[in-house]
């Protein structure tokens, strides 16, 4: 499992014949992404790499291919319109890679996208990747590995740095999402955290924030209230001077608000593990995941499944593999997760009552 995109995602590339668009389309196709079409006005009817049909408009592209996602590589002055065109054509997931989209364009686009019910990721973002399944955007595939850590970040290369370290340490990723460095973006930390919390294949989350705005502070509050999975966080820009835009349009301390110190304090107050350096993610994640395993099985899984699984496990103390499977099926729809849970609970009950196999 994963969030936002998987094998069923079918993709249209907006700006497929451009320099960046064509390069990354090839990369995505190599990775296994189902690129079903592209849009470049005036080049409709042609084919990209002799395989992918090109259309003049998004409306044509969606009608012909039935795609449910799009990725945008068009120049900044046309990006806002491209986003609206995608939303209007009924695309569910729009990933805008383009950097340099004017803020006021985004202010106009945002309510439109919302009304159409689409999810927008970006702009000014590296996109997302569900390792081993699909990638939408520009995250290099070879630094990722399939696994269970969810990654969400406002940055590009900093994300690669951390993901690469996770991969080398054997901590694969469920999905990595770059939400972008602009002040107004379509998807924020909370959207991703919520999705990771609901994703049964994600067991922990690594988040990389930076100075500017209050998105991280609000995310911290969300973690405190709603997350059962461990979260490790990092804030870039501890040495950034106030009032200066640090590369990303959104990375700016305005007045006294949006500092790294303020965000780190919010993380700590919410029980988020704070990575002081990018290389602290691996040990912190390992520690949290380990202590979690030892500490309590009860905290694993969704509350409803947990409850039923516990009840069933009690009955199935003498469980054989078969009864365990039956119990699991009763426990919930997510059978693999529930089977595991029941197995754990049975083990624990056995240990408690001093029984041996």
């Amino acid at each position, binding site marked *: 499992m994963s969030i936002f995109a998987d094998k069923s995602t079918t993709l249209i590339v907006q700006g497929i014949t451009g320099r960046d668009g064509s390069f990354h389309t090839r990369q995505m196709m190599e990775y296994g992404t189902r690129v079903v079409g592209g849009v470049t006005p005036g080049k409709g009817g042609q084919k990209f790499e002799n395989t992918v049909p090109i259309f003049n408009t998004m409306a044509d592209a969606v009608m012909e291919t039935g795609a449910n996602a799009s990725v945008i590589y068009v120049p900044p002055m046309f990006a806002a319109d491209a986003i609206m065109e995608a939303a209007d054509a009924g695309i569910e997931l729009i990933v805008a890679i383009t950097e*340099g989209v004017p803020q006021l364009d985004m202010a106009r686009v945002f309510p439109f996208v919302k009304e159409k019910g689409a999810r927008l990721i970006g702009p000014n973002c590296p996109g997302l990747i569900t390792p081993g399944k699909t990638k939408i955007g520009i995250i290099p595939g070879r630094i990722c590995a399939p696994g269970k850590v969810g990654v969400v970040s406002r940055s*590009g*290369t900093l994300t690669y740095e951390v993901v690469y370290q996770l991969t080398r340490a054997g901590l694969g990723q469920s999905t990595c999402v770059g939400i972008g460095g602009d002040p107004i973006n379509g998807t924020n930390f909370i959207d991703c955290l919520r999705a990771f919390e609901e994703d049964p294949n994600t067991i922990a989350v690594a988040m990389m924030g*930076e100075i500017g705005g209050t998105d991280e502070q609000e995310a911290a509050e969300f973690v405190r209230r709603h997350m059962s999975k461990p979260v490790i966080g990092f804030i870039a*820009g501890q040495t950034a001077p106030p009032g200066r835009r640090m*590369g*990303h349009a959104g990375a700016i301390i305005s007045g006294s608000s949006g500092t790294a110190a303020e965000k780190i304090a919010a993380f700590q107050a919410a029980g988020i593990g704070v990575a002081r350096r*990018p290389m602290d993610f691996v040990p912190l994640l390992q520690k949290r995941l380990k202590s979690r395993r030892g500490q309590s099985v009860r905290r694993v899984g969704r509350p409803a499944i947990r409850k039923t699984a516990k009840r069933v496990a009690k009955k199935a103390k003498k469980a054989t593999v078969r009864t365990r499977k039956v119990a699991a099926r009763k426990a919930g729809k997510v059978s693999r997760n529930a089977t595991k849970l029941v197995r754990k609970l049975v083990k624990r009950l056995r240990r408690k009552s001093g029984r041996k196999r």
Partner: protein
Amino acid sequence: MNIHEYQAKALLRAEGVPIPAGEVATTPQQAEAIARQLGGAVVVKAQVHAGGRGKAGGVKLAKTADEAREVASRILGMTIKGLTVQKVLVTAAADIASEAYVGIIVDRAAKTPVFMVSPAGGIDIEEVAAKTPEKILKLPVDTRYGLTSFQANRLGFFLFDDVRKVRAAAKIMQQLYTAFMKAGCSLAEINPLVVTPSGDVVALDAKMSIDDNELDRHPELEKLRDETAEEPSEVLARNANLTFIKLDGNVGCCVNGAGLAMATMDLVKFYGGEPANFLDIGGSSNPEKVVNALKIITSDPSVRAILFNIFGGITRTDDVANGIVTATRQNPLKVPIVIRLTGTNEEIAVKILKDNGFSAMTDMDEAVQRAVAFATGSNGGPAE
């Protein structure tokens, strides 16, 4: 991009906002001539991109034209928050009965422009927000409909009781909003918006920041950029398409990507060093960019060590390596350099560097520690 008060006032005047007459001067003699032309008392105001000009002595009242020349000669050339005053605005003085604050910003949380008004004007609005938040009204504007009349009236009634002043203020709000949208601002402020003893509502000061991303669309606004008011190295970097911010430390940093650049600076600090700059060479790396980056970093005399931190995703690390070799051939380095690169074409990059007498590292943590050690001299000597 910040523009000067006199430039912002020109944009607002074009929309009809009432603003006392005034002109900009670069010499005391010009200031005197303008004051004479305006007649009566004038205010001479330093034109720099810094807040707190008044407190720093950059805003002075002059009753006569002679006094205006004398005041201007003192303000021109003074430094405010590290910036040298090159221009002054000479403007007719207005009598003030009351002061209010009017501003618009693009609000990140609301994802739309938000008006902020307060009857407590003339002072720092952040202070008002912190101490007496009830004195501020915030009103988001849906850009699809613009600022509606009822919204403008509501803002006006929050500032004034007298309906004549409310109408005048509401009109100014509309004009300010139009100017804000036309120029593609991220911030526009009138502080103070004053009421004169005769009951007129006028804007005495104006501040506007234009979203850098809008400048391609507005070449006429790009012309308003005052390069003399910026750090010379930052101007150089912008013209070379690099994002560069000068800082006070001694470890020169060259990184790809803004997030990684910030994280690298933080790590320098973590290990006891001080970053000399923020520098993002961006996504696609041609060797030319690296050459320019090195030129800019080495032009800072306080730099004691140079740190390259490149994570090659789209950026090809061999391009960066070639850039380093070319740049150092043109201008041999006088300070040690630590190069960390990993990712796309890493093997080729390492070979290029080794063949040219550089050592390359792959671990970010170690590289930063080493650069800091060079800069602080704790394990002395250059790398090569």
